[in-house]
């Protein structure tokens, strides 16, 4: 048995680790009891954990299978990292159409959580670039599915948080790219109204939009960033520099004393960088990937992420209500992201993205006090008709999950009875 933790480092339960190395014979039936596929453990809560039980370690399935330079179709195993695809394919003129805020995740995990990027309003979520996948069930059955093949299985598996089977092999449609550069614009904003105006205004002319929000400022000030891909630039490629957080500090570095000056200085610093510029895709998409183990900064007790999406109609007031609940609580967040989603429904039965506005926040784990704040935020989300993101979640109540995901009833019949996670037991009872 081995201690396994996820990115939030909230628990460290013992797991039996079963490596999967052969995509044709993953050996899933070898697990007595239940198990769940586990990639890089970059989800924040318990979606990838199965304390006391087993996990299938998918990193051994990290081979590419084929690539068609003409069409941009890539076949690969499910444990391949997005980073591997980006670094190999961008010099050849192709890249992933959708990428989350870290590229150190597996393709299988990106599908199972149907992750999204800054360009959701243009290309949708990760499931939208999957043309085919191969799903192994613990019964030994193998199901090939895609947007035009076994569509029900596809819709259950995309965003299906690993519960329909184990994704072993994937075919992706990459997009053509002219190089690694983006032209960017950084715009400070001083209120939520300003944020929404900027977001709406950027939707037609900008592919990537995102904003950092200072959740300690009452008005909701922040920094809006937008970007478009551009061709070759007469600029040197950035040198690969990476650092890591070598030890876990005894208490969270992000705390009540440090947060106000951190948020203030980040805002002032970014405000000075207002205006247009050119950025390399790695620094634009993955600003934290060069700081390895940054999750250690939250100390030994770990941290929670809280990410919700609210429909647009109720979202503007809902976000304001959440910000004021946070400032009343005395808790605070540094990595706070506010972004609008495009007007499209995701294809997965349990996919998180939907039209509206999404707010993502991180909170050092202060136990009861933090959970108390989440209850207050939950009621705002429920009232607004929103939902929480399973990939980030470690604690949402079952009723909120059920209310937020109307596709759940349909989903249940696609579950693999040999697969279970801490999250599935918490939110689905098994």
């Amino acid at each position, binding site marked *: 048995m081995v201690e396994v933790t996820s990115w939030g480092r909230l628990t460290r339960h013992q797991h039996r680790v*079963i490596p999967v190395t052969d*995509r044709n014979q993953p050996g899933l039936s070898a697990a007595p009891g239940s198990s769940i596929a586990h990639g890089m453990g970059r989800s924040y809560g318990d979606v990838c954990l199965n304390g006391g039980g087993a996990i299938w370690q998918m990193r051994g399935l990290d081979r*590419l*299978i*084929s690539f068609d330079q003409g069409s941009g179709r890539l076949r690969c195993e499910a444990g391949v990292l997005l980073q591997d695809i980006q670094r*190999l394919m961008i010099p050849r003129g192709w890249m992933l159409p959708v990428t989350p805020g870290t590229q150190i995740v597996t393709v299988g995990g990106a599908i199972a959580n149907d992750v999204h990027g800054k360009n959701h309003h243009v290309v949708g979520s990760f499931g939208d670039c999957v043309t085919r996948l191969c799903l192994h069930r613990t019964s030994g059955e193998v199901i090939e599915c895609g947007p035009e093949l076994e569509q029900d299985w596809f819709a259950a598996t995309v965003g299906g948080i690993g519960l329909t089977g184990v994704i072993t092999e994937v075919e992706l449609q990459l997009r053509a790219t002219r190089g690694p550069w983006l032209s960017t614009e950084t715009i400070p904003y001083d209120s939520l109204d300003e944020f929404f105006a900027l977001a709406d205004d950027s939707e037609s002319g900008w592919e990537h939009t995102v904003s950092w929000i200072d959740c300690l400022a009452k008005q909701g000030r922040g920094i809006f960033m937008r970007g478009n891909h551009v061709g070759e630039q007469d600029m040197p490629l950035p040198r690969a520099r990476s650092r890591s957080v070598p030890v876990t500090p005894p208490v969270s570095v992000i705390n009540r004393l440090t947060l106000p000056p951190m948020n203030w200085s980040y805002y002032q610093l970014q405000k000075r960088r207002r205006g247009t510029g050119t950025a390399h895709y790695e620094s634009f998409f993955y600003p934290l990937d060069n700081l390895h183990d940054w999750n250690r900064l939250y100390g030994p007790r770990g941290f929670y992420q809280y990410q919700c999406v609210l429909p647009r109609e109720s979202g503007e007031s809902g976000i304001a209500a959440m910000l004021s609940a946070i400032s009343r609580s005395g808790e605070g967040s540094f990595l706070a992201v506010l972004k609008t989603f495009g007007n499209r429904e995701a294809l997965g039965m349990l996919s998180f993205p939907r039209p509206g506005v999404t707010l993502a926040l991180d909170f050092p784990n202060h136990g009861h006090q933090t959970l108390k704040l989440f209850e207050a935020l939950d009621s705002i989300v429920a009232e607004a008709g929103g939902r929480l993101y399973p990939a980030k979640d470690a604690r949402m109540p079952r009723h909120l999950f059920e209310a937020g995901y109307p596709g759940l009833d349909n989903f249940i019949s696609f579950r693999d009875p040999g697969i279970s996670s801490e999250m599935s037991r918490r939110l689905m009872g098994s």
Partner: protein
Amino acid sequence: MNTYQRIVIVGATSAIAEHCARLWVTRSPDELVLVGRHQEKTEAVAADLRTRAPGVSISVRMADFQSPGNIQQLVDELTTRRAVDLVLIAHGSLPDQGMCQADLSLANEALDINAISPVLFAEAFSGAMERVGQGCIAIIGSVAGDRGRKSNYIYGAAKGLVERYAQGLDHRLGATKVRVALIKPGPTDTPMTAHLKNSGPALASVEEVAQCIVKGVDKRKPVIYAPGKWNIIMLVIKLLPRFVFNKVNI
């Protein structure tokens, strides 16, 4: 940076070997030959490398790793047409020490695949390389070969044999341009060690280990610890007096 034009990897499905191959193919060698025991698994590695480096000719050869005749024949075939610039001998398996103690046939198998077989491959290549007067033989040993300890001494003994062999081979070829490199990875995060995580020192990532190996081979080092810190750690372990060492639970 050396560009080895013709590279052979024995035990190509080993995670460390596979990651070394990924680094080497980015340098556009002419040809890479993958030697394996399982056709399908080795083909999967070849397909991956072809996708990464479409310009490199990559082929797959099967061999019985425990048959001296088969090894000799394969190496003859690989070396007659054209010289091999670099061979990486990477196969092995990490047996459970307790089970080896309980079942001699498992101990026998472990000694065979981790010691005898790599030595036979190296011996076969050394003859061919000596004749053409060039080439590099890189063999994956292990830090476990540096000092026997109770938790894995059957494996350690096999890797220790490989070390003594590499030393002798290096001595024999000292006057030629053929080089021998003994690679000693520390505990590495691979499928072979999935059950060991957290139970000992932090495992190095296989990417990091592969980078150390590729760099070490470039620098023509005779012994490559990967990562380099294991050189110091093992020096301390080797120097521990017996009365202290035997009290340590490692």
